[in-house]
């Protein structure tokens, strides 16, 4: 096991992380619109990792997820003139990526297993022996606890974590949940995660 999870939290530096991403994206896109070609590279570097995480939350395989991310960027350059609010470019990209991910996951629902190596649905019994052994410090403990959550909670937490201002209505539809239920569900998923973390603390 080479899991070197000794990274300690740096809460102060992390707190504003996602709004930095949004601001950088808006600035880069603005410069691209005003004719600075290199600004698109910056935007791609800033947003592609975020798009990747959100798309993967839908359970797409690696190659499908890569396609969805590429399609999202092509959609941007094809429709750049019709983006109403360039300052909300991150939201536009995330929405486009989620829609495409949703469509692809629906289209391949019968042939592609929902889970992959990351979102693998592991039953609790199966998970606990391995995961408790792994759960020595920070990230491994968190990972073990996340894996015990329902697949739906795992997805929701992942999407919400990476989107600064999630569109709950659309996410609800994409996850097959009633509109208006996301806020409370997010709360429940977080509570369950916290419970799992507490339990793990208790069993140490």
């Amino acid at each position, binding site marked *: 096991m080479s899991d070197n999870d000794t990274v300690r*939290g740096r809460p102060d530096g*992390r*707190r504003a992380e996602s709004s930095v991403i949004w601001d950088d994206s808006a600035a880069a896109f603005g410069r691209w619109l005003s004719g600075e070609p290199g600004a698109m590279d910056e935007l*791609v570097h800033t947003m592609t990792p975020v798009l990747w995480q959100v798309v993967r939350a839908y359970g797409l395989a690696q*190659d499908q997820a890569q396609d969805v991310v590429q399609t999202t*960027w092509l959609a941007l350059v094809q429709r750049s003139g019709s983006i109403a609010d360039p300052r909300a470019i991150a939201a536009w990209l995330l929405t486009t990526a989620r829609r495409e991910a949703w469509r692809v996951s629906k289209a391949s629902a019968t042939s592609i297993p929902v889970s992959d190596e*990351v979102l693998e649905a592991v039953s609790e019994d199966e998970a606990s022996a391995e995961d408790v052994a792994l759960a020595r410090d920070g990230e491994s403990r968190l990972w073990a606890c996340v894996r015990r959550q329902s697949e739906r909670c795992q997805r929701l937490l992942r999407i*919400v*974590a990476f989107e600064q201002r999630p569109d709950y209505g659309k996410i609800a539809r994409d996850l097959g949940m009633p509109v208006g239920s996301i806020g409370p569900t997010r709360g429940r998923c*977080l509570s369950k995660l916290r419970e799992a973390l507490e339990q793990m603390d208790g069993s140490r």
Partner: protein
Amino acid sequence: MTIRSDAGLPDEELFARLRRMWSRRDPIPAELVDNVLVALETHDLGTEYAMLTLLESSGAPMGMRAISDVKLLEFSHGERSIMMRVSDLGKGRRRIDGWISPAAPLLVRFEQDDDDFTTAASAEGRFDFSDLPAGRTRMWVQPEAVHSGRGGSRRGFTTDYFIV
């Protein structure tokens, strides 16, 4: 209860840890950013791609049995429609005959997971891929002169992924 519990973190810090965790557990593939940049560079920015809708898909699923399986697919967007006949050649190979209507000599590209295949439709709008691998495919239909310069109103078509 222990003191250094993640359980007690404020939401935002817990989400920050989740972000860091997923970024490390399921990192973005090393080549993805470059692939995106290349795709953007080589893409013809003067062409808009309208999404063709799959209207009809008929015939038995491929690969289940004998040699004579034929599947028909029809896509359309506005007045443009594209019909395709997918024939099973066996051993995971397919033949595609297509008709573009209204007829036009357009380039047709089939994008698959491992490869791309391009052919030109005839003046009558017919195109043909005589031997393709089976699998997930996405069709791009481009104006023929797509490689040269910019031109405001050119229009191409694309589809969702479908299985041949």
